[in-house]
């Protein structure tokens, strides 16, 4: 098994773990974590692909991942700020949980 194939598989598995985490776990913060885990999985596939062209490493996927990391932190920050605003508005978070 080549290195790039191994990390591609890891990346897809990470994507799957993140997807399960997004759909299943109870807390919103963990859903936000899960989105980040999914993103890391995608990045791993990209970096593995870049590495598959060794010894000349393809810099384009690296640039894509750099862009992706910044986009991910932007999305995470927006999500967290929404969570905090919702929390500040609620009397009792449990009460609204089932809506």
């Amino acid at each position, binding site marked *: 098994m080549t*290195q790039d194939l*191994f*990390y591609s598989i*890891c990346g897809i*598995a*990470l994507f799957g*773990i*993140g997807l*399960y*985490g997004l759909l299943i*776990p*109870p*807390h919103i*913060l*963990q859903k*936000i*974590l*899960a989105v*980040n*885990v999914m993103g*890391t999985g995608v*990045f*791993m596939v990209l*970096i*593995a692909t*870049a*590495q598959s062209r*060794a010894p000349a*490493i393809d810099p384009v996927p*690296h640039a894509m*991942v*750099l862009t992706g*990391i*910044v986009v*991910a*932190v932007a999305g*995470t*920050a927006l999500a*967290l700020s929404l*969570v*905090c605003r919702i*929390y*500040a*508005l*609620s*009397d009792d*978070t449990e009460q609204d949980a089932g809506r």
Partner: protein
Amino acid sequence: MPIDMTIDFTLGAGVLVLAWLSLSTTNLFKAIVLFISLGLLVTITWARLGAVDVAIAEAAIGAGLTGALLLAAWRRLRTVPGNTRRKAGDNHVS
């Protein structure tokens, strides 16, 4: 080379296990800390795959800043008992 494969398998398995633990624990603080450790392990992985630019960004933004944001949000969710619900401007569209 056997040593190389050992490193790769350790890294890959470590990343998957940390991700799973982080998403399956019921303790939020633990989840965030595990996520930050995941970011650090991923940083090592990027460096190993020759993506040094990405590794620096991952350490600074992916693990560092995202971790700081998550911890800050966690503290607010824990400490602020949002009991100052304002009726006006809240329910006018519900």
